[in-house]
């Protein structure tokens, strides 16, 4: 059991958890992740240690409230509570090399996963520019990134209350693609790296490909065990089936079968929505019960 030392909402739908997990803190390297199971009847979900202290034995997770599990974590966990399971660290650490001039992109909460890698790359002597594209109220780690890398660029899109969420998200994708194009036109980079929704990763890749710049992507397929046992996370890379949890999560963007990956990530959408709706009903009932 892993005690929550600190919990705070650092931006809209973005929650910061500082958790005691010495076995992870001792070993974790940039690019690795953990599998968290917060509740007894809960799911196992992959999350990324963003910061850590090896001596004090804690890690920081920053979690975007997306579906039922992440909503339950945001609603039900208090500082002092314990997360049932944190397995890890898992996945291969990001390659620590001198690539030269790097553009590291994070869409939405993806930027938190970029942070430890970009920071380490900069420390290694690379010239790192980070780009964060998201909705206005969802900007996170701005100060930290400004301190950590050569240049940090934030591009935001307002949330239009008259539009539904998917349409709003398309606006983010549009801005993301425009901005990346603009940056690649202005300057030449030796490497582009990106974390964010798979659809956005593919859209960015299409632009990067035009410029012929090498690109790596940290992939987010659905995972269960994270240790190579289940095969849920399989992706086709260079025509071969790879398991993202033990072969990745980072792969060469030019080799990834993007459409297959996008289809696989959406397989449970209907069930996830149902779970979320039923959970919201429970919350509403609880709220009404509380008012009486």
């Amino acid at each position, binding site marked *: 059991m892993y005690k929550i030392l600190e919990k705070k909402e650092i931006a809209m739908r973005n929650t910061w958890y500082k958790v005691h997990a010495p*076995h*992870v803190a001792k*070993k974790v390297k940039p690019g*690795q992740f953990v599998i968290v*199971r917060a*509740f007894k*009847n*809960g*799911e*196992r979900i992959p999350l990324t240690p963003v910061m850590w202290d090896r001596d004090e034995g804690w890690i920081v997770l920053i979690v975007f409230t997306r579906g*039922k*599990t992440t909503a*339950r974590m945001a609603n039900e966990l208090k500082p002092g509570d314990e997360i*049932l*399971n*944190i*397995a*890890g*660290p*898992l996945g291969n650490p990001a390659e620590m090399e001198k690539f030269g001039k790097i553009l590291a992109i994070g869409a939405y909460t993806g930027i938190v996963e970029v942070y430890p890698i970009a920071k380490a790359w900069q420390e290694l002597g690379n010239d790192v520019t980070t780009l964060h594209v998201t909705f206005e109220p969802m900007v996170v780690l701005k100060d930290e990134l400004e301190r950590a890398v050569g240049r940090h660029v934030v591009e935001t899109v307002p949330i239009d209350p008259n539009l539904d969420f998917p349409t709003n998200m398309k606006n983010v994708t549009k801005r993301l693609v425009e901005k990346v194009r603009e940056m690649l036109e202005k300057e030449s980079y030796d490497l582009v790296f990106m974390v964010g929704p798979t659809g956005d990763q593919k859209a960015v890749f299409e632009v990067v490909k035009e410029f012929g710049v090498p690109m790596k992507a940290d992939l987010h397929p659905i995972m*269960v*065990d994270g*240790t*190579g*046992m*289940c*095969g*849920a996370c*399989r*992706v*086709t890379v260079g025509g071969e*089936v790879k398991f993202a949890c*033990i072969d990745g999560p980072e792969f060469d963007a030019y080799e990834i*079968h993007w*459409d*297959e990956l*996008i*289809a*696989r990530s959406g*397989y*449970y959408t209907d*069930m*996830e929505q*149902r*779970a979320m709706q*039923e*959970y919201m009903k429970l919350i509403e009932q609880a709220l009404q019960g509380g008012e009486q």
Partner: protein
Amino acid sequence: MAVKRKIIKERVPTPERPAEERIKSFVEVNLGYTFELAVKEAERCLQCPYNYAPCIKGCPVHIDIPGFISKLVEYRDDPDKAVKEALSVIWTCNSLPATTGRVCPQEDQCEMNCVMGKVGDKINIGKLERFVADYAREKGIDEELLFEMIPRIEKKGQKVAIIGAGPAGLTAAGELAKLGYDVTIYEALHEAGGVLMYGIPEFRLPKSIVESEIDKLKKLGVKILTDHIVGRTVTIEELLEEYDAVFIGSGAGTPRLINAPGINLNGIYTANEFLTRVNLMKAYLFPEYDTPVKVGKRVVVIGAGNTAMDAARSARRFGSEVIIAYRRGPEDVSARVEEVEHAKEEGIKFEFFVNPVEFIGDGKGNLKAVKFEKMKALDERDSRGKRKIVGTGEYVTIEAETAIIAIGKHPNRLIVNTPGLKVERGRIVVDENLMTSIPGVFAGGDAIRGEATVILAMGDGRMAAKAIHEYLTKKRENGNA
């Protein structure tokens, strides 16, 4: 033994829940014996002398089968005493009888050799073993035995790390703890038990039983660190700095896939993923449990081992039509006979001599059908004694929204990548003492055998514990000298 017995040819059957009822839930299928029925079955045993008893020879860990069976008859007037005596006989060789009584392929082991088979039905050894373990657990007799054992343990002051909490690791841990070693298990998942927990379904092996077996180990002082992945959280080299010996019981966890177009379509599960979602994460209780699983109206399970039966019968419990497709013939089905019968009773259909060649999608990334080549058997046999098969060039297509691949597994890659660890064809190589190429590191179970059985894994665990004990005794003596 001298008592003259009347030969009763028929087995005393164990009650089972009817098929129509059981395909609606994950409750256990076989209900097991009562004491009265167990005694009746036990009385049929001819009590072959220990040195001769062919059942003992057939058992991979050589349980004194007539020995434990006789206790049930001898103390028939005192059920508690009968069970306690029987359990202590079993425990000298097997610490998980509630599990092995349920999952061992008895028909190929102890029961295969039973001399009663010459005149009638073989003794139902598996169900008797299971009865002893279940009764003991329900009455707390196993705890009693355990607590009698604990004060006799003499602490050795040496530490052993075990990798993996499957049957191999659990058995090694238990034996070493009984010998007085300080034992810590490193387990990757959030629950101990290995395949017993994540693979074999509730309706065949209730999880509460596995949990209670693990509780007993904890009472013996074994520490279990879940969420610790050796190869990531800690390496074998680091374990060797802290512990005096290491045992690898990491199993064969990596699923084999079929190298055919469309393998990554939605709706195609490895048996491991499907069973992990269903068993370990309890997806059959979604949305009360958060993990989803999708089971189409039509399901094809590819393979015909225990894993395939378990996947098929689990899928059936979601109300689906299920077909087991196997590239060989019925005589080569490797699953336990009881499971095959149960599967048939539950309405699962079998297609033999079909080999998948393509997974056909619906254009949106989801599985629609599986294309198979029809196979035929030759007279020639392969190294495992199975008839060789060849393609006929004819094809059949089976429509299905879900396909579950159950064609085997390789050992866990995170472990086999350890520097200095000798591995052949994915399996860890060991000597006759189960020691690997790294001194002080031992291994057993599926990690060295590829996919095998629970009892073989346990046998390895026991043997390794013995070898580790010898190794550490020498180390102690040298250290003291």
